[in-house]
C-alpha cells in the first residue's frame, strides 16, 4: 500500500521521543549525548521527508549542515565530559548537583 | 537661553547635588553651607514666584517647554499655577529648615546632603511639572534617596520601616503609571480620531504649536477630556466615556492615595516618620505626603472628572477612617514621633475630605491645609529631632518636664501642638475651617452623608487637641525627669533657632492673614472646580 509522508513523520516522531526518553532517563552523560544525537537525526529525517515531498533541495542541504553542527556539538560535549571526568572521576549527572536552590 | 522660574527652582537643587559631589568629604562646613545656600536660593525663587504671580490672569505662569523625547511626545514641560506656587513655597521652606536642622549630622554629612538635595529635586519636579511622564519621573526620583536617608541615618527598626516605605511608594507610583499610560494612549486615539481638534489645540496654545497626537502633556489630555465630554452623554460617547473613567480614576486614586495616606494604605507612613532622621522625616511628612493629594487634584480631578464625581463620595467615607481611626491610634502611641506620624495621617484625612467636597471653598481649604500641615509637621519633627539627638529616646514615659531644661524648644513645641490642634492665628485653623464649610456645603447640595462627615471631622479636631496636648504635657511640662538634669542643651544661639522661627513665622503670617495665600490658590482651584461642576451635572442622572 502507499507510503505517505505521514508514515515518515510518525517514524521521526517515535525516534525523537525515544531520544527524549533517553535524555530524561539515563544518568550517564555519554548516553545522554547519544540520545541527543538521535533527536537531531530524527529532525533530519523530517527534513528529508519534506524535501522529498516538495521536491526541492533545500531540505537536503539543511540536513547536510545539521549533520556538521551535530558533529561539532558532539566533539565539544565529549571534551567537556572528559574535563569533568578529570575533575570528579565520574560522568554520572546525579553527582553534579553542587549548585542548587 | 531664558530659564523660567519654574525650571530654575528644579535646576538649583539638582545643581547643588552635582556640586556637592565634587566637594571633598573632609570639608564638612563647605558641604553644609553649600546645601544651605542651595536651599536658600529655592526659598528666594519660590517667594518671588509667589509675589510676581499675576492673580488677575491666573492659570499657568513661569512656563517653559523643551522637547525631551520626540517620538513619545515627552517634554520638559514646567510651569506653576496657583496650587503649584503654594506647594513650591511649602517645599522650599521645609527644605531650608531641613538643611539648617541637619547641620548637626556628623556621620557622612556629604552623602546626607547629596541625598537630601536629590530628594527635593524630585519633589520640586512634581509640583512644577505639567508633563505626565515628567510628573512620574520626578515622583519616582524622590523614592530612593528617602530609602537611603532612612536606612543609613535612621533610628528605631529602620530596615523594616524604610523597606516598607519604599515598596509602598513604588507600588503606588507604578499603579498610577498604568493609569497615566491608559490616559496617554486614549488621548492619542482621540486626537487621531478627530485631527481638527488637534489643530485647534495647537492654535490655542502657542507653547505647544508643534504638539503631536501622542503626547504626555497634561494640558493636551485635559483639552481632550473636555472636548470629548462635550461630544455626548456620559455612557454614549466613544472617548472618555464614563466606563473608561470609572476604570482609570480608581487607578490614579489608589496610586496617589497610597502616598497621601488614605486609610487602608497608610501603615507605611508612621513607621517611616519614626525611623527617619529629623531632616528626612521633615521632608517626608511635610512634603512627600502632599505629592499624593496633589497628584489626585492635578491629574485625577482634571482629566477624569466624571469618574471623580462618582467615586469621591466613597473617598470621603475613607477620610473619616483617616481622621477618627488615625486620631485614636495616635492617642494610644507611646513614641512621640509615632504620635506625630499618626496625627499627620489624620490631618491628611481633612485634605482628602476637602478634595472630596468638590466645591471651591473645600478645595481651597484642602490645598491651604496641605501647605499649613506641611509647615507644622516639619516644625514638629525638627523639634523632636533636636532633643532626640541628645536624649536618644522619644518614649513619652521617659521624658518629662523638659521645658525647664530647653525652654525655647518647649515653647515652640507648645505652639506647634496648639497650631496642629487648629488654633486660630495659625494657618491650620483657617484651612480646616474652610474644609468644614466646604463639606457642609456639599451636604446641603444633596449628598446628606456629608453632614455626618462634618460632625466627625469637627470631633476629629477635638481628638487631635487631646493627644497633642497630652504629648506636650508628658514631654515638656510637669516636674523635670532627674536623668535629663543638665544633659540637654537648648537652641540658644540665633542660628539654631532660625529654622524653627522661620516655620512659626510662616504659620503665623498665613494664619493671621490667609487672604495672601488663598487668593493665589483660588486662581488654581477655580478652573478645576468648574470642570468638576459640569461633570457632576452630566453624571447627576446616572446612578
Amino acid at each position: 500500500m502507499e507510503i505517505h509522508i505521514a508514515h515518515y513523520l510518525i517514524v521521526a516522531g517515535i525516534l525523537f521521543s525515544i531520544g527524549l526518553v533517553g535524555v530524561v532517563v539515563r544518568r550517564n552523560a555519554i548516553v545522554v549525548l547519544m540520545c541527543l544525537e538521535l533527536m537531531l537525526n530524527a529532525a533530519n529525517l523530517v527534513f528529508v521527508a519534506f524535501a522529498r515531498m516538495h521536491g526541492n533541495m533545500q531540505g537536503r542541504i539543511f540536513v547536510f549542515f545539521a549533520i556538521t553542527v551535530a558533529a561539532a556539538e558532539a566533539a565539544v560535549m565529549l571534551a567537556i565530559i572528559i574535563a569533568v571526568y578529570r575533575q570528579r572521576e565520574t560522568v554520572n549527572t546525579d553527582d553534579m548537583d553542587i549548585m542548587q536552590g | 537661553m531664558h530659564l523660567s522660574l519654574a525650571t530654575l527652582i528644579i535646576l538649583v537643587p539638582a545643581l547643588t547635588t552635582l556640586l556637592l559631589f565634587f566637594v571633598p568629604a573632609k570639608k564638612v562646613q563647605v558641604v553644609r553651607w553649600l546645601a544651605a545656600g542651595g536651599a536658600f536660593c529655592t526659598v528666594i525663587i519660590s517667594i518671588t514666584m509667589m509675589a510676581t504671580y499675576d492673580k488677575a490672569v491666573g492659570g499657568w505662569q513661569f512656563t517653559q517647554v523643551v522637547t525631551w523625547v520626540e517620538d513619545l511626545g515627552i517634554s520638559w514641560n514646567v510651569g506653576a499655577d496657583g496650587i503649584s506656587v503654594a506647594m513650591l513655597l511649602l517645599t522650599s521652606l521645609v527644605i531650608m529648615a531641613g538643611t539648617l536642622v541637619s547641620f548637626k549630622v556628623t556621620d557622612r554629612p556629604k552623602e546626607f546632603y547629596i541625598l537630601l538635595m536629590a530628594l527635593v529635586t524630585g519633589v520640586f519636579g512634581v509640583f512644577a511639572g505639567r508633563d505626565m511622564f515628567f510628573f512620574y519621573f520626578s515622583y519616582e526620583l524622590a523614592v530612593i534617596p528617602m530609602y537611603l536617608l532612612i536606612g543609613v541615618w535612621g533610628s528605631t527598626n529602620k530596615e523594616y520601616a524604610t523597606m516598607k516605605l519604599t515598596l509602598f511608594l513604588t507600588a503606588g507610583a507604578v499603579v498610577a503609571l498604568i493609569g497615566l499610560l491608559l490616559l496617554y494612549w486614549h488621548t492619542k486615539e482621540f486626537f487621531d480620531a478627530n485631527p481638527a481638534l488637534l489643530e485647534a489645540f495647537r492654535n490655542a496654545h502657542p507653547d505647544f504649536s508643534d504638539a503631536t497626537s501622542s503626547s504626555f502633556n497634561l494640558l493636551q489630555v485635559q483639552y481632550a477630556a473636555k472636548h470629548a465630554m462635550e461630544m455626548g452623554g456620559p455612557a454614549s460617547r466613544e472617548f472618555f466615556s464614563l466606563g473608561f473613567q470609572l476604570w482609570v480614576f480608581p487607578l490614579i486614586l489608589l496610586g496617589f492615595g497610597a502616598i497621601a495616606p488614605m486609610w487602608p494604605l497608610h501603615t507605611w507612613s508612621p513607621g517611616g516618620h519614626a525611623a527617619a532622621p529629623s531632616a528626612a522625616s521633615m521632608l517626608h511628612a511635610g512634603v512627600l505626603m502632599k505629592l499624593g493629594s496633589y497628584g489626585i487634584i492635578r491629574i485625577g480631578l482634571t482629566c477624569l472628572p466624571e469618574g471623580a464625581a462618582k467615586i469621591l463620595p466613597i473617598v470621603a467615607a475613607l477620610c473619616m477612617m483617616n481622621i477618627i481611626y488615625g486620631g485614636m491610634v495616635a492617642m494610644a502611641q507611646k513614641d512621640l514621633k509615632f504620635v506625630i506620624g499618626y496625627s499627620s495621617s489624620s490631618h491628611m484625612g481633612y485634605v482628602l475630605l476637602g478634595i472630596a467636597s468638590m466645591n471651591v471653598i473645600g478645595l481651597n481649604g484642602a490645598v491651604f491645609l496641605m501647605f499649613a500641615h506641611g509647615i507644622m509637621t516639619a516644625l514638629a519633627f525638627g523639634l523632636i529631632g533636636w532633643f532626640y539627638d541628645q536624649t536618644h529616646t522619644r518614649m513619652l514615659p521617659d521624658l518629662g518636664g523638659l521645658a525647664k531644661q530647653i525652654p525655647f524648644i518647649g515653647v515652640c513645641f507648645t505652639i506647634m501642638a496648639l497650631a496642629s490642634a487648629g488654633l486660630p492665628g495659625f494657618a491650620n485653623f483657617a484651612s480646616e475651617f474652610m474644609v468644614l464649610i466646604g463639606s457642609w456645603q456639599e451636604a446641603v447640595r444633596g449628598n446628606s452623608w456629608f453632614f455626618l462627615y462634618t460632625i466627625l471631622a469637627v470631633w476629629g479636631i477635638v481628638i487631635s487637641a487631646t493627644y497633642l496636648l497630652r504629648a506636650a504635657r508628658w514631654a515638656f511640662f510637669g516636674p523635670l525627669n532627674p536623668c535629663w538634669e543638665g544633659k540637654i542643651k537648648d537652641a540658644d544661639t540665633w542660628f539654631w533657632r532660625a529654622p524653627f522661627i522661620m516655620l512659626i513665622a510662616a504659620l503665623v503670617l498665613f494664619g493671621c492673614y490667609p487672604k495672601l495665600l488663598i487668593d493665589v490658590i483660588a486662581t488654581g482651584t477655580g478652573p478645576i472646580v468648574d470642570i468638576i461642576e459640569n461633570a457632576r451635572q452630566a453624571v447627576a442622572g446616572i446612578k
Partner: protein
Amino acid sequence: MDAMNLHLMLPEIYLVLLGLVILIADLYLAPEKRFNLGWWTAGGLSVLAVWLFATPTPETVEFAGFGLYRADGFALFMKKVFALTGILVAVMSTGYLKRYGRGPGEFFSLVIFALTGMFMVASVNDFMSLFVSLELVTLCLFILAAYRRHDKLSGEAGIKYIIVGAMAAGLMLFGMAFIYGATGEVRFTYMGADGQLVLLSQTVANLESGWQMTALFGFTVLLVGLGFKVAAVPFHVWVPDVYQGAPTPVTAFLSVGSKAAGFILIIRVITLVVPTIAPGADLALVDQLVKLFALIAGLTLFYGNLAAIPQKNLKRLMGFSSIGHAGYLLLGIVAVLAMKAAGEETMNGVSAIAFYLFAYVFTNMAMFIGMVIFTQGSEDSHAIDDYAGLGKRAPLLALCMTIALLSLAGVPPLAGFFGKFYLISSIVEAARLDGYGWLLVLAAAGAVNVVISMYYYLCVVKRMYMLEPTSDEPIHLPPPAKIAMVACIVLVVVIGIFQGPFVQMATGVLATLGF
C-alpha cells in the same frame, strides 16, 4: 537579491580575521605577554564599533549572500550592541584571566567567534543560516562556560548548559523542519515566481488549514526552542546554575549577548514569518501565539523575581534577575504579536525592546565588572553578605554597583527606568486593541514585579551601605576595569536622563523591519 555583494558583510569578515589573528598571535607571543591579547581584542572591536556607529542607518533593506543576509536598521542597531558588549567583556576578562593565568588566546578567539555568530544572527534571512549561526554562538558559549576546567563549578555549569542547549537545538531543528514542511521554503524573503519579493509570512498566510496546523506546531516548538537562549520560563532552568558556575566575564557575555541574540531571532521570526490573521482563515495562528507568549511572559516575570528574593549568592541573584528582565522583554514581544494580530503597522514593542537591550548592556556590564573587581578575579565566594559595608571599604565601587542595581530595579534618573516605562507603555498600547483588553493583566504583572524586584535589589544596596564591613582589607581597583565601569555608569545615567537621541535610534529601527 541574487548577488553575493560581500561589501555588506565586511563587519563579519573583519571579525573572523580578527579571531584568526588572535589565534595565530597566541602561538608566537611569550607566555606572560599573551595576556595583552585582551587589549588587541578590545582595540579591534572598538575599531569595529566606531565603524558601525559611523555607518548611517539604511533606509531600505539590502540583501547579500544570495538573499540569506539582510542588512537593515534593526541588524545595524543590534550589531552596535554586540560590539559594545564584546569590548566590555574583553576589558573585563584581561584582568580576570591574568589572575586565572590559563589560555588567554583561545578565550579571546572564542569570544570573537561568538561575536561573529551574533553578528550573523542579527542579519539572518533564512532558517538555515539562523540555525548555524545560533549554534556557533551557543557552541562558543558552551566552551567558555566550562573554560575553568579545574574548577568543579565551571565543569558542572558546562555540562548542564550543553545538555540543555543541545536539547534546545534539537527542538529548534524539529520546529524548523515542520515549518519547512508546511511552506516548502526555508528563506524568509525570496524571489517569487513573478520576480516579486515574497515574504514567508504571506505563504504561511495562504496555506490551507491542515498545513496551517503544521506551521503552528512548527512555530511553537521553534519559538519555545528560542526561549532557551532568552531564559523564558520553560527553558529558564539552566540559567541560575550556569550563571553561578561560569567564569564571571562569561556570565556577563552570556547574560547580555546570548539574550539579545535570542530576542533578535524571535523578533525576526515574528515580523517576517508569522502571518497576520488572514480575513477568512479560521485558525487565527497569531492569536494562539499571543496567548502562548502572554502566558510565558507572565510566568517568567513572576518566577524570575520571586525566586530571586531568597538568594544568598550575588551571581545566582543576577541569574534570576536576568530571568526577570527576560520577562519584561517578553512583554515587548507580546505587544509586537498583538499589534501584528490586529494588523497594525507601528511596532512600538520592537523599539522598546531595542532600547531596553541597549540600556541593559551597560547596566549589566557595570554590575559584572564590579563583581570581578570585588572578587579580585578569584572565583571563591560571591555571597552577598561579603558585600557588607562596601560603602565604607571602596566608596567608588559601591557607588557604581549601587547605580547599576538601581538601574536594574528601574529607578528614575537611570536607563533601566525608561526601559521599563517604554515596555509597559507598549503593552498598555497593545491592551488598547479590541479583543486584547486582558493584556492589562500583563501590564499589572509588570507593575507588581517592579516592586518585587525593587525589594531584592535594595537588599544588596542595604548591605553595602547600612551594615559594617566584615573584612577590611582594601580592594584594589585595576585602572582599566575601573575606567570601563565608570564609563558604563556614566552612560547609564546619560541614557537615563537624555533618552531623546537613544529613543530616536531605537525607533529608527522600525522603518526597515518589514520588507
